[in-house]
């Protein structure tokens, strides 16, 4: 066991964990932010996606030791009140069904739109195919990304 300082959503958390503990479990069980989900543990499904230093990572496959002092953003941190353009677009398109995969979907979408504010459908396929949705919300996700893209592109003008 070792002590780590984790910078999550702008706050610093002191945690104690085995260095090899996947960041996912530390975020969920030690810090108490359960919006990031466990889906597979082998970086195949995307449910655990968070941002580290602005880039999407699979927190199930990153040991907490590697995340120490890095800047982490989870789903809870992208807005105070569901006001991020991606969240608003997700609600407008009524995207979630069971919703379990959606934290990861949104984190991947936010990351895509940061890199490409006006993504093509192929860009969306590329960026989002790492996130599995068992409830089949893919067509709505695509639509919501295009909607969010319009708001983000307008905002940056």
């Amino acid at each position, binding site marked *: 066991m070792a002590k780590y300082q984790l910078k999550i959503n702008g706050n610093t958390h002191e945690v104690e964990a085995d260095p090899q503990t996947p960041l996912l479990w530390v975020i969920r069980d030690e810090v108490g932010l359960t919006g990031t989900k466990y889906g597979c*543990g*082998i970086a195949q499904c995307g449910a655990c996606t968070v941002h580290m230093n602005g880039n999407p990572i699979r927190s199930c496959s990153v040991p907490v030791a590697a995340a120490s002092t890095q800047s982490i953003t989870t789903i809870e941190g992208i807005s105070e009140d569901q006001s991020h353009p991606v969240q608003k677009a997700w609600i407008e398109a009524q995207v979630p069904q069971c919703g379990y995969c959606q934290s990861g979907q949104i984190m991947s979408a936010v990351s895509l739109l940061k890199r490409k504010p006006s993504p093509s459908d192929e860009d969306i396929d590329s960026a989002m195919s790492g996130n599995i949705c068992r409830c089949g919300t893919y067509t709505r996700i695509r639509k919501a990304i295009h909607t969010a893209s319009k708001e983000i592109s307008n905002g940056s003008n």
Partner: protein
Amino acid sequence: MEATNGINRRKFLKITGISGAMLAVGFDSLAAGLSKDSVVKAIMAEDFVDGTALHPFVIISEEGPITIMATIPELGQGINQGIPAIIAEELEVDLEQVNIVKSSASRKYGAQSIGGSRNTRMLYTPMRKLGASIKEVMVQAAANRWGVGTSDCEAKSGMVHQKGTQKSLSYGELVKEASKLDMPEKPMLKAKKDFKIIGKPMPRPDLSLKVSGRADYGIDAQPEGLLYATVERCPTLQGTLTSYDKDAVMAVPGVVKVMTVTRNVYGNENTGVAVIAESYFAATQGRKKLNAQWDNEAFTKISSESIREEMLELADQDGYEHVEKGNFNQSQMDGSGEVEVLYELPYLSHTCMEPMNATVHVKTDGTCEVWAPSQRPQIQRQFASELGIPENEAEDKIKVHMPYLGGGFGRRSMNDSLVECFQISKELKKPVKLIWSREDDTTQGPFRQQTMHRMKAIFGEDGKPIGLQHKMISQAITTQGRPGRNRLPFEVMEGINTHYDIDNISSRFVEYTGQVPIHWWRSVFGSTNGFAHEGFIDEVAIQANEDPLQFRIERLRSEPRFVKVLERLKKEANWDQKLPDNEGKGMAIVESFGSIVAHAVFLKKENGKVSIPKVVSVVDCGTYINPNQVEAQLESSIVYGLTAAMKDPITIKDGAAVQANFDTYRMLRMNEAPRAVEVHIMENDEAPGGMGEPGLPPIAPALTNAVYDLTGKRIRSLPFDLQKV
């Protein structure tokens, strides 16, 4: 976020599943005086709802807020909103006026199970009556106060108005008096034309939680002092535990206990070894040291292949009769041509995105608190008997939270993870969260059934079909562990359409008894029967030299609802339009769980890749509550069904499931999903049909019928690789 006496506010809100706005009572006053080790009284969401309950489902506060309890487990099908919406309609309140609060599991809410796409169908009329009864006592209370007749009053948007005057009273102002009146036995229900809520798109209240990581799923439960558990189970599903290395596991830092747990799967008691630790990571590290050994020789000989061979041997048997129209055997002798083919489908896992899990706290004071992400959450009586609690005290002493479910698809109607977790917590008298790893979840079953279908068609001299037989060979769900029932199990012939106007139709079931456990899976036998039946009907149509869609229209004239759906599909899919050579189209229609769904799948081959540019769907689900949810459930069933058709099977080899995680049990992803799904809903006044499952059975045959159209290749065995056609 500061912890208050060990209970974190955010965790608390998540645990109880109520939004911050609903929390009327000061948080600190609740938490005050509680230490980490004290026995905390289990607090359920409904404990916070202020007001008078005219019925457990409807609580109206004198201050104004109207609460409708959402009592059916929400697994993505939107029932949490759908049922309250039905009540609100007849209650004459606007959805914006209503707080929908997710309830706990309790018999005071009646039946709370989900499955079979049943709930809207079963609850539509009773919930309308409930809303209407409460409205009527409100009107009566207002009439009493004003000294007028009820026909002089009108209810609207949570207020009662005296017609022709400015007088009005809110439900909040009336509730105390209304609560003293008798609820009418036969309230008047609204005419459909007067519906303000039902039938219109309505935004779901759980979505804002689900886009911000605040929805409480079972796996998110975090009572204080939580321990984490993982269970090693026999790889061949059944087998006897002979040894394991307890000392090696206990030596792993963080591990606090190693013990056996037993789950009953359709009559088989399956024992596994649980490792319990202070963190989930430590538990999984401990589990790696177990070296569990099993006596399972008898099961290692089982494989998908051996099962297939055994089924093939049964295919000549007569089995049970389902439908015998005319005389199929005679038609075989009278006909001039015969086609006989075999259709086959594999075992499949449910693969909810949230793997199986449960959290249970058997407390030192003899009470129990449970977080049950279950399709059958009323677990009190089962646990009460294990704890020696009298049945009439079960509900008081055992509190069951109903978190959101990260998918169910039928798997969560089996409470085996709850039972395993309960055994651990009962032993330790601590809160325990049991998480099934994705590998556990995929490989341990129970599964969607493996099936074989012997299809026969007899043709007359004019080349038209005069006979059709669908003989289905499979295990049945309801006869597992219950030998000797000797009649057709009710669930196995779902989705076989015997309405087709062919003179001699025979559908029969030959029961296969196997060791691999099966269970309800989205659309159950519709998922396997639909593929074989509608794939074969397509073959028959083409053999008879007819367009597959028109063939169905002509031969379903006796069933107008089918014909209307088919004609609508023909129009919306532009079916008669000739496609270029690199495109194909296929369709299928199946009735299941009270609704009729037809899909047209369009395929395109370009740059060596085959894609699905579009699916056009037509659904007749009778009266529907939220058209947005109807569309969403169709989109959902399409993706679930396409995954089953095109991605990996569960292969049994040496008695164990081969596929374990998403690297070998692959899912349909954004890039392979249909680019567009167009849904058209038939409008009629029929009773509500189900919507969670009916979209699934027709998608696989529509897809393979499109493959035939595109390539001339007939797919009769699933799954297949779309890129290799």
